[in-house]
């Protein structure tokens, strides 16, 4: 054996079976890896490329007609945004016509978007939103206004939940990262919601957020001595998304607490001792010792929360179905609405591709951030 090891410094063959093994080892390796490779190809990699393929067709889940190539039509519908300036309706004397409440009236958007031969560029577009500025009404038209709202909602959710959940997770980790009595108990309690399904949590919080008997309203009424007026949290466009954010953070923050904690425990105790000798206070220790030591953990946590936040679906599906007034609809919720509920695989795939590009952007930013540190 020693002889073989000497003649093969790269360790190419280290067996008593000699040359035969040079052929057997790759064969055995392929055989052992092949179940995983085949399943990965069939159920992950091929579907992934199919998303790009379907997005350029009119594929439906069930259809009597053959599938056709439609070029960029799906993406055009998905991403078109145009601004339309509407001037007030004027009477014969050139004075703006007022409605019964005394407001200036404008022509309706549909006069431009429904088969108006003078404005072919607006044909088929939907009203997304509008502002009245400087005597005109500026209307944003979109090929798919609901998708635009879902994109905005998804970003809104991510922008709040990423710093919020990461920060809360870090706070919890710092609180329990000290060996004092009862810390294990608190860690357990903070972590329990993680093992409860988000679907269970969503239904439970329907009651907690209820407008009449909900625990949140009752608690707030009690704490303010009756001055707080109960709110139907999930039924109002301005409170539905924040309510879902709070619930989501409550459910998932334990994951990030544990990851922060693992990061905290890699920081050598001796650094803190040295800082103490130099007279650093608690805050200074955090800024100069703890935070620099957590950099990789921080990047990882921000990226995982971002990816999970962009994929927001279950809470929406159970609690609000995108409502009220599209205020909680999200990108993945729309992908499922179009691809599954309406069986429009092509359009659903186009949304999936758009979603993938979002996620890829986040991943590239992560790579950029971690690379910077190595330099």
């Amino acid at each position, binding site marked *: 054996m020693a002889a073989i090891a000497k003649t093969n410094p790269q360790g190419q063959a280290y067996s008593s079976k000699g040359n035969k093994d040079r052929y057997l080892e790759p064969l055995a*390796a392929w055989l052992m890896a092949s179940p995983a490779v085949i399943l990965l190809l069939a159920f992950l990699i091929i579907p992934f490329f199919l998303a790009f393929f379907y997005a350029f067709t009119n594929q439906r889940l069930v259809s009597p007609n053959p599938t056709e190539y439609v070029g960029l039509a799906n993406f055009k519908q998905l991403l078109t945004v145009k601004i339309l300036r509407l001037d007030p309706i004027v009477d014969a004397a050139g004075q703006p016509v007022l409605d019964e409440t005394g407001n200036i009236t404008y022509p309706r958007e549909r006069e431009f978007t429904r088969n108006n031969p003078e404005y072919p560029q607006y044909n088929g577009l939907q009203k997304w939103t509008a502002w009245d500025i400087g005597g005109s009404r500026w209307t944003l038209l979109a090929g798919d206004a609901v998708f635009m709202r879902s994109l905005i909602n998804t970003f809104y959710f991510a922008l709040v939940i990423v710093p919020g959940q990461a920060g809360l997770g870090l706070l919890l980790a710092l609180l*329990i990262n000290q060996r004092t009595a009862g810390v294990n108990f608190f860690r357990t309690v903070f972590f329990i919601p993680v093992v409860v399904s988000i*679907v269970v949590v969503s239904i439970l919080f329907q009651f907690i957020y209820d407008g009449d008997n909900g625990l949140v309203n009752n608690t707030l009424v009690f704490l303010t001595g009756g001055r707080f007026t109960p709110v139907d949290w999930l039924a109002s466009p301005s409170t539905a998304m924040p309510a879902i954010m709070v619930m989501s953070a409550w459910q998932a923050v334990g994951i990030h607490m544990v990851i922060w904690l693992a990061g905290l425990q890699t920081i050598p105790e001796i650094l803190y001792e040295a800082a103490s000798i130099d007279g650093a206070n608690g805050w200074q220790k955090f800024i100069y010792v703890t935070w620099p030591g957590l950099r990789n953990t921080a990047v990882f946590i921000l990226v995982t929360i971002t990816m999970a936040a962009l994929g927001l679906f279950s809470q929406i599906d159970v609690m609000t179905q995108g409502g009220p007034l599209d205020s909680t609809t999200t990108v993945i919720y729309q992908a499922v609405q179009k691809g599954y509920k309406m069986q429009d695989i092509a359009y659903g795939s186009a949304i999936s591709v758009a979603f993938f590009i979002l996620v890829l952007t986040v991943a590239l930013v992560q790579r950029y951030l971690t690379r910077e540190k190595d330099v």
Partner: protein
Amino acid sequence: MNLILSIKQKRALFLALRYGLMSLLAVIFAFPIVFMMVSSLKPSLQILRDSSSLMAFVPMGDISIDNYFKAFERAPIGLFVYNSLMVTLVTMGLGLFINSMAAFALANMRWKGQQVVLSVIIATLILPFETIAIPLLMVVSRLPWLGPEGLTYGWLNSYQVQIIPFIVDAFSIFLFVQFFKSLPYELIEAARIDGAGWFRIYAQVIVPISGPVFATAAILRGLFMWNQYLWPSMVIQSTQYRPVMVGLGYFWQLTSSNTAGEGILPWGELMAYLTIITIPVIVLFLALQRAFVESIATTGIKG
């Protein structure tokens, strides 16, 4: 009065603040779950009445397990639980075997294509399931299956559609590769000298000493499979194969359209259903707490 505190007093104050904050947070984290369990024992009217006071968290009054009986009558919850258990356990079992075997080939054997395969697997880690759900729906709706009824096409409404796409998991493979690479190579060399084949080395040398990483992969996969919602809600319409979480959505719709006798939602029954599918996971978590927390923490290592 001297407002400047001694170091000792400062410490005590900080400690009190810390415990105060932790206790407040603990209440916020625990109470919704306590409320769920307590309410599952109360009639719906009492749940509504109690919700305006601390009674909401106290199992007092008209306490019984009636809600559980009623919930089981309203929907085949036992079947849903069976479906989920079966899908979770089979996927987990097959997954542990196939993923760890592939990881062994990738970590401990030398072959052409090894690097490419490993890089592709690592690359798929950034691919969330949501991106492929819609095209995968298309794929599985056309796939052939050889079952008791002969050759059929389309996997919708079946067990295999919930199992087979989830057997391979890139993150599990990644975990196994990391672990296997850290094992001393002499172990494999010694077994080779003794004339053991590669599969035997994997099954009889590597697997027996890899308990922790198997536990981690099993916990992460088990939680994921038990909680599956998006995929089964797209591919399962029939009661026969419905898993618990989709069954829960179905139960919720059933109750919110069909109120109990008193003209209110049967919240008690809902809470009973929620409790039934949550308690086993919480018990499992409390029993294997260390392993649970450590598995979640390992997801942070990949960064």
